[in-house]
């Protein structure tokens, strides 16, 4: 069975400083992993995806994530936060093989301080 744990429910950083959103996963297979962002009253937008190619994945808006199988982690980072990054971020796992769709973490609320 697949599952996702987002280690922080809220993260607050100052504008221009680095962002780190932490995610651990559990999967019986080699999973695909994703990060989605949700701005208030908006749908979900795909930031990046890992599908067993390069372990360092680059996404949109300067975000990137590193797949570490030994640590079962897929942390999301950005070198310099912007006010527009304030949103809810979801780590998502999909292991295929008849698994029940995408499994989402509970989300991390990113707050950007001016």
């Amino acid at each position, binding site marked *: 069975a697949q599952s996702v744990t987002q280690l922080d429910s809220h993260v607050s950083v100052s504008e221009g400083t680095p962002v780190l959103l932490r995610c651990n996963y559990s999967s019986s297979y080699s999973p695909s992993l994703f990060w989605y962002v949700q701005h208030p009253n908006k*749908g979900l937008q*795909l930031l990046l995806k890992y*599908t067993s190619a390069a372990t360092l994945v680059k996404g949109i808006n300067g975000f990137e994530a590193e797949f570490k199988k030994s640590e079962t982690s897929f942390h999301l980072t950005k070198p310099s936060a912007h006010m527009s990054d304030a949103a809810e971020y979801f780590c998502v796992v999909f292991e295929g093989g008849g698994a029940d*769709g*995408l*499994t*989402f973490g509970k989300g991390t609320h990113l707050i950007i301080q001016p």
Partner: protein
Amino acid sequence: DAGVTQSPTHLIKTRGQQVTLRCSPKSGHDTVSWYQQALGQGPQFIFQYYEEEERQRGNFPDRFSGHQFPNYSSELNVNALLLGDSALYLCASSRTGHTEAFFGQGTRLTVV
């Protein structure tokens, strides 16, 4: 490309009523999935439709049913509404064989 579109954007229903939500997938996509997102939670998988059949189902009761039409659009039906069904309902579309899913903006359902 209009992306994934959902209707209506908001609606209010009374306990015990029935509701139908609609979704048009992104152009070129043939698979539609539905998710329920309760306030402050991550989305939870309800079911997935492909070739007009339910292919996978999450842990939701039979009150939740769906349909996919020949043009790949889809409906989610919920019968005998409960207060706990109040949530944002998200539709996602994808192409068979591809894991990447695109989401609509959702339908906010409030049950009173």
